[in-house]
C-alpha cells in the first residue's frame, strides 16, 4: 500500500507523462533529496530552486502565464507567510484581468502539526488559505485522495493550493491507487536508495487518470446520530473514533472528509446536518477566525431549524505557536481524546 508521499509522487509522474507538467520545483525538490518528505523523488522534471519562497511562487505564476502547468513547492507551510501577496496575485489574476489570463499552477506545501515541529514546522495555513479568493484549496487525508486531488489540481485552470498534512505523509491508506503494485515492489521501483543516488532512476508503475473532483467531499463513515466535518490530519483520527463509537454502541457518527476547502462541498455538509441535527467541526487551525466558523454561521443561516443542538468546533488553541514539548503540542492541538470527549458531549446534549 502506497503512503501519501508516494501517492503524490506517482500523481506528479502521471502529470509529467500525460498532463504536460514540465516544471516541478522548490527548495530541495530535485535530486538528490527529492523533497524533504520525498514527495518528488525520481521525477524527471523536478529541480532545486534557490532558497527563496517569493521567487518560487513568482516563477510558478510566470510559468503559468506562459502556458506551462507548473507544480511548485513551499517546503513547509510555515514558510509561506512571506509570499501571501504573491499567492493573492495568483488567486486574483484571472479576475483582475477580466478573465484574460488563466493561472494553471499548483503550489503544494506540508501543513499542520504532528511531527514535533515546534514553532515553525507545525503551522496550519488552512483558514488563511480560504481567504485567497480565486485560489482553490485542497487537503487530502488518504493516499488515494492525494493522488486524485493532485491530478485534478494539475488539470485545473485555476491556481490550486495543495495542502499536504505533514503527519500523514508517511501514512498508508485502505484503498489501492489504480495501477499500484504491492508495497515492496513499489518501494523498489520508486523510492530512492540510501547513499549514492547519482545513477538511480525510478521505475514507474502504469498509472491511470484517476482524479478526485475538486469541491467534492467524501463521506468516510456513514452515520445518523451526528456529523463531523473535518479534513487533513484530523480526518483519520475522526474516522477511527467514529468506527470505535459504532462498535462500542456509543453512537453512529457520520464523518465528512472535506478534501476541498475552496470550493467546499456545501451540499454534502447540509445534507448530513439535516439528517443528524448535530454537527461538530474538527480541524487543526486555531479557534479564532477558524474556517469552520464560516461553515457554522452558514449552517445557522440555512439549517437553523434542523439543528437539534448547538453546532460545535474543536480546533487548535489560539497560541502564538505550537510548543515543542509533547505536553504542549498535544494540549494545543486536538488529539484523539479531545475528539472522543467532544463527540460524547455533543451526543449527550439534550435536543
Amino acid at each position, binding site marked *: 500500500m502506497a503512503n501519501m508521499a508516494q501517492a503524490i509522487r506517482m500523481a506528479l509522474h502521471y502529470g509529467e507523462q500525460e498532463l504536460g507538467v514540465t516544471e516541478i520545483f522548490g527548495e530541495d525538490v530535485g535530486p538528490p533529496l527529492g523533497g524533504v518528505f520525498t514527495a518528488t523523488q525520481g521525477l524527471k522534471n523536478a529541480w532545486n530552486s534557490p532558497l527563496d519562497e517569493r521567487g518560487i511562487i513568482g516563477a510558478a*505564476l510566470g510559468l503559468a502565464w506562459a502556458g506551462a502547468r507548473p507544480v511548485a513547492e513551499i517546503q513547509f507551510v510555515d514558510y509561506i507567510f512571506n509570499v501571501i501577496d504573491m499567492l493573492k496575485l495568483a488567486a486574483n489574476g484571472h479576475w*483582475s484581468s*477580466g*478573465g*484574460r*489570463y488563466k493561472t494553471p499552477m499548483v503550489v503544494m506545501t506540508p501543513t499542520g502539526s504532528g511531527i514535533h515541529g515546534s514553532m515553525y514546522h507545525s503551522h496550519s495555513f488552512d483558514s488563511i488559505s480560504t481567504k485567497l*479568493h480565486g485560489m482553490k484549496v485542497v487537503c487530502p487525508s488518504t493516499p488515494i485522495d492525494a493522488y486524485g486531488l493532485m491530478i485534478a489540481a494539475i488539470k485545473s*485552470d485555476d491556481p490550486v493550493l495543495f495542502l499536504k498534512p505533514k503527519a500523514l505523509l508517511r501514512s498508508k491508506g485502505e484503498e489501492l491507487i489504480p495501477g499500484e503494485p504491492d508495497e515492496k515492489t513499489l518501494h523498489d521501483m520508486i523510492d530512492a536508495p540510501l547513499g549514492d543516488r547519482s545513477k538511480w532512476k525510478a521505475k514507474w508503475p502504469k498509472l491511470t487518470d484517476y482524479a478526485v473532483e475538486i469541491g467534492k467531499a467524501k463521506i468516510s463513515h456513514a452515520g445518523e446520530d451526528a456529523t463531523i466535518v473535518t479534513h487533513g490530519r484530523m480526518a483519520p483520527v475522526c474516522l477511527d473514533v467514529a468506527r470505535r463509537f459504532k462498535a462500542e454502541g456509543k453512537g453512529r457518527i457520520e464523518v465528512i472528509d472535506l478534501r476541498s476547502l475552496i470550493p467546499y462541498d456545501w451540499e454534502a455538509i447540509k445534507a448530513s446536518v439535516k439528517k443528524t441535527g448535530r454537527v461538530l467541526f474538527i480541524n487543526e487551525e486555531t479557534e479564532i477566525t477558524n474556517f469552520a466558523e464560516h461553515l457554522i454561521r452558514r449552517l445557522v443561516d440555512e439549517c437553523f431549524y434542523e439543528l437539534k443542538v448547538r453546532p460545535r468546533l474543536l480546533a487548535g488553541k489560539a497560541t502564538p505557536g505550537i510548543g515543542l514539548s509533547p505536553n504542549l503540542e498535544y494540549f494545543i492541538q486536538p488529539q484523539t481524546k479531545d475528539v472522543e470527549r467532544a463527540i460524547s458531549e455533543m451526543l449527550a446534549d439534550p435536543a
Partner: protein
Amino acid sequence: MPPKTAAPAAPDAYKKLGAAKLLKIHELMVRARLLEERLIKMSKGGDGFFWIGGPGEEAFNVPLGMQIKKGHGVNFDFLHLHYRSAAITLAMGAKPIDALRQMRSVATDPYSKGRNFVNHYAIPEYNVVPVSPTIETQYSTSIGTGIAQARAKTDAVTIVNGGDAGTAEGDFHSCLVWANRPVLPLPILIIVVNNGWGISTAGRTQHGEKNISDWAKPFPDMPGKTINGNDIIESWAALEEAFSYVRKNRKPYLLEARTSRLYGHSSSSGANRIPEPDCIELLEKGMTERGLAKAADFKKTWDAEAAALDAAHKQVKVEPFPETASVWEDVFADGLPSSYPTKGGS
C-alpha cells in the same frame, strides 16, 4: 533628482535614426503624454478615480515598446510591467481609448472589466501579463516566463520594468539571483526606470548605491548600464544593445534609465506638473536643430492626437458601467460553483 547624462548623444545620432522613425517615435510619445494628461484630468474631474502613470518616461518607454518582438506565447517577448508603462503598450499598438475605459471603470475596459486602477494592463495577445498595484512583484513573476523562454528554442525574451524605489524590495533581488543561476541563466531584460523618487521620498536619502545598475557587478554574465532615459537617442541605442545581448546570449541584462517624473507619483501627490526636463521638448529641439522637422510638423501631431483623444473620451463617456452581477465572473476559470457563498453574510 535631475536626470543625469551618462554620455552626450553623438552629433549624427539623430540622422542615423532618421527623420521618419523619429517622427513616428515623436507621435507615440505625444500620444502617451496626451493620454496621461487626459487621465489626470479625468481623475480630477470626477470621470474616474485614482490616477497613476508615467508621463516623463516616454523617451525610454516608446523605444522599448517599438523594439518588442510582439505576439503571443513563448516565441514572443513577455512583458512584466508596472503602472507607468502606458507609452510601452501604446508603442506596441494598444489603443488610448482602452486606458480611458479603465480610468472610467466602464464595462468595456478590456484589461479588467472595470475592476482595477488605470494603467493596469493585461494583454495576452501581446504577452503583457497582468499589471498589479503591488510594488516589485513583477520582478518575481518575470522569473517564470524567463524559465519558459530559456527552455524554448527562441530568440524571444522577458522584459521586466519597475521603479527605483521598489528595488529595495526582495523581489528585485530574487530576479537577479534567479536570472543568474548557473544551471539555467534566464533571458530577462531587467529594467529599472529611476525617476529619483518613491512617492514623496527622495531616493538619495534611502539608497547608498551609486547606480542601481551596480547590482549587476556581482554577476559576471549580466551587464549593467545606466543611461539618460530622457534622451531618445541614448535610450534607443541602449535598448538595442541590451535586447541584442539578451536575445543572443540568453542571459540577463540590467538596464537603469534615469528619467523625469513630470506629474509626481500619482493622484496622491496632486498630479500637478513638476519642473523637470521634458523629453518631448528635448526631442523636438534636437530634430529642429538638425533640420529633421519643423514646429508645424510637431503641431500637426499634437493636434491630431488631441482630436483623436477627444473623440475617444466622448465615446467612453456613454459606455455602460459594469453590472453588479459581473463580480461573480472570472472568480474561477471554470465558473462559480452553485453553492459558493454570494450573499456577503447572512
